[in-house]
């Protein structure tokens, strides 16, 4: 089975695209393949996460400080249900946006099915904010040896995206994942990511995506229940993006 998945991973590494913003260090390092992340910070990128904890994230896209996005995510388990709440604020007085979200994930063993409802606000100048409601839907399996995930972002919207991801454990402490993104508008793309435990408290995560070609890499330090992660992501035409996650896990 693992060989089959590895073959799939290799086949999927073809140059295509990637669209939605990645506001966490983990998702920037992994190009959005959240099957390899074990952080509640990524709850804003996929509804199908079973983790609990609280995370604060900062993302400076393309080194543009005024566009810095600050995110707060928290998730708690109630029996089989994982409730995730979060908010993201980015921009300054001239232009800013907010994303409020509430997600429910049903966790049955290694299977997770989740739904997240977003209220997205965008404001330019002194005009009233524009509201939009977005929904994400996902189904994931997170086994020890391998995992897969299908998620639909911005359900029934023009910006709808379908993400199909798979992951596998190559050896102990090393995992790899690949994904394909189909975008309703514009080009989709392929992604490939790895997560390597360099030491007991240190993990290196890296990724590559197509269309545009971007590399991402990040280091995660673990100290008891705390995770601190810093990552960067390149762009073919723009400056580096920097991200930082601070996570408390329970």
């Amino acid at each position, binding site marked *: 089975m693992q060989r089959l998945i590895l073959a799939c991973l290799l086949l999927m590494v073809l140059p295509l695209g990637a669209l939605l913003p990645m506001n966490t260090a983990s998702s920037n390092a992994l190009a959005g393949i959240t099957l390899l992340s074990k952080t509640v910070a990524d709850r804003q990128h996929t509804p199908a996460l079973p983790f609990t904890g*609280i995370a604060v994230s900062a993302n400076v896209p393309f080194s543009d400080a005024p566009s810095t996005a600050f995110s*707060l995510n928290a998730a*708690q388990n109630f029996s089989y249900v994982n409730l995730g709440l979060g908010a993201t604020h980015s921009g300054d*007085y001239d232009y*800013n946006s907010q994303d*409020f979200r509430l997600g429910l994930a049903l966790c049955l063993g290694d299977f997770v099915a989740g739904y997240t409802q977003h209220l997205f606000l965008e*404001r330019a100048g002194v005009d*009233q904010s524009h509201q*939009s409601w977005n929904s994400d839907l996902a189904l994931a399996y997170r086994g020890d040896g391998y995992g897969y995930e299908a998620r639909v972002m911005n359900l029934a919207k023009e910006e709808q995206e379908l993400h199909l991801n798979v992951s596998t454990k190559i050896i102990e402490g090393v995992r790899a994942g690949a994904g394909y993104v189909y975008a309703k508008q514009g080009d989709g793309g392929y992604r490939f990511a790895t997560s390597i435990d360099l030491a007991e408290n240190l993990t290196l995560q890296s990724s590559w995506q197509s269309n545009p070609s971007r590399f991402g890499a990040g280091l995660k330090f673990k100290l008891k229940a705390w995770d601190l992660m810093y990552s960067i992501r390149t762009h073919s035409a723009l400056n580096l993006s920097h991200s930082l996650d601070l996570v408390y896990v*329970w």
Partner: protein
Amino acid sequence: MKYLALAWLCLCLTPVFAQISEELPELEIPAQAEETWEQLFSELREQPLSLAGRADLFSKNPQIHLNGRWQLPRAELLALYNRDLNKDLDAFSFRLAVGSNHWDAVLGNYRLRFGRGLALGTSSRSMPDSLFSFQNPLSPRNYGLLGAGTAYRHKALRATVFASMQSREAKLDAEGRIRSIQKSRGEEFSSTTESILGAAAGISLPSVNAGILCQRLEYDREFVNPEMSRTHWMASAYAGLKLKRIRLDAETLLQDTHPAALLNFNYKAAGFEQNISYARNGLQNRQPHALTPALLSKTTDSNEWNFDWAFALPLKSSLKLRYAINNDAGGSPLSRFIGSLTHSHKQRKFGFLFQSYDSEIITRIDSSYVSSEPRNHRFRLWGRYPLAGALEQNFDFMYGVQDKKNHSQNSFRAKLGFAYVEKDWELTLEYLSWQNLHESWQSDEFDPWLQSLCASEDRVLSLDLAWGRGAWKLAVKGTASFLDVKNRGISLRATWKRK
């Protein structure tokens, strides 16, 4: 004249996350101020001698509050002070309450509740525990009763006499006649002297309460409205009956020639409660010192029927439903439907609230309320639960459908908060965002009649740090807006209690 303008989205700007009311908040602004004061008095009453101070600085509405309470043998002294730093305005009030087995007496600022509160009382719609009772005063800026009152009880007999005399701010015309009377001190208008003398008597048995109230109200000036005279007489009768699971009660009121009535039927069984009430409002202008009960519009000759059901559900949940229909003379019926589903288990609480109502219900009260749809809907989802250890999370999201075609016209308020308690320390972080169609009016937390202009939308981050040990509790709260650089404030709080 605009009776009350407010911003429903901003009602919970304060860190209070207490009772979530099912009713439309616009109809319950006075009740929310009452709740705030009750919480404050409850805190002050934890020890015999307590002082609480609060300074809201650098905000749009900077104020200083100083409140004290002293418990004496068979007596209690409350002293309240407020200073409005913008208007350079001071207000002070006190209440001395003395009690014995047969007598209660109050001196200073007080409120009296009789029966259902149709004539005198609070904004609470709940069934009274007693025939009449002296209530805590509200903000020293509010005009309540100022004078003295005494109540006597002997076995089943109850009687009270009360008097009030004070100078109240009033808008006058060129001839010195009263156009309107202010409910809050502002030192902006002229004044008129108000004198009230009243008495009530009745019986109070375990299953029966009945009594009558008679009151005379007089002003030293004529009113512009020819239908209003300087002197008003008011008579009210109340009766309540308990029959196992059934409670019946009714209050009728006659002010001058205007009748009003409130009838209520309540049935309560294990896991189920039903309430049916009928109200009729014949008062063109309510008593200036009385807080308006929510269920009656201020329109003359209006009738309102209320139907309430409450069910206990599995999984420690409950369902409440309310349907109310209001008929005005010559107008079309206005209705509202409210449903709430709540879950409460230890520290974990979740709730969902749905409100569907004719928008005119609110525009009658708040002329700044704008809606393109005759029928509006609101959704509210809230929760509060522990995360890990001493860390707690809360969220509160409200969304109002006022325009179905352009959803960006609709109003919302979203709050995400965290609280952390460790020994003597308490840290609270909140992020609040709201959007409304236009700028609107926000009622003060302590004084429902004091309003300040509220931005049509904002994103506010607040951090509250509190420390308490022994007799002292100190706290500081900072707020900052992401959209308005001038909208920042600091609030300092201090409480001292001695055994």
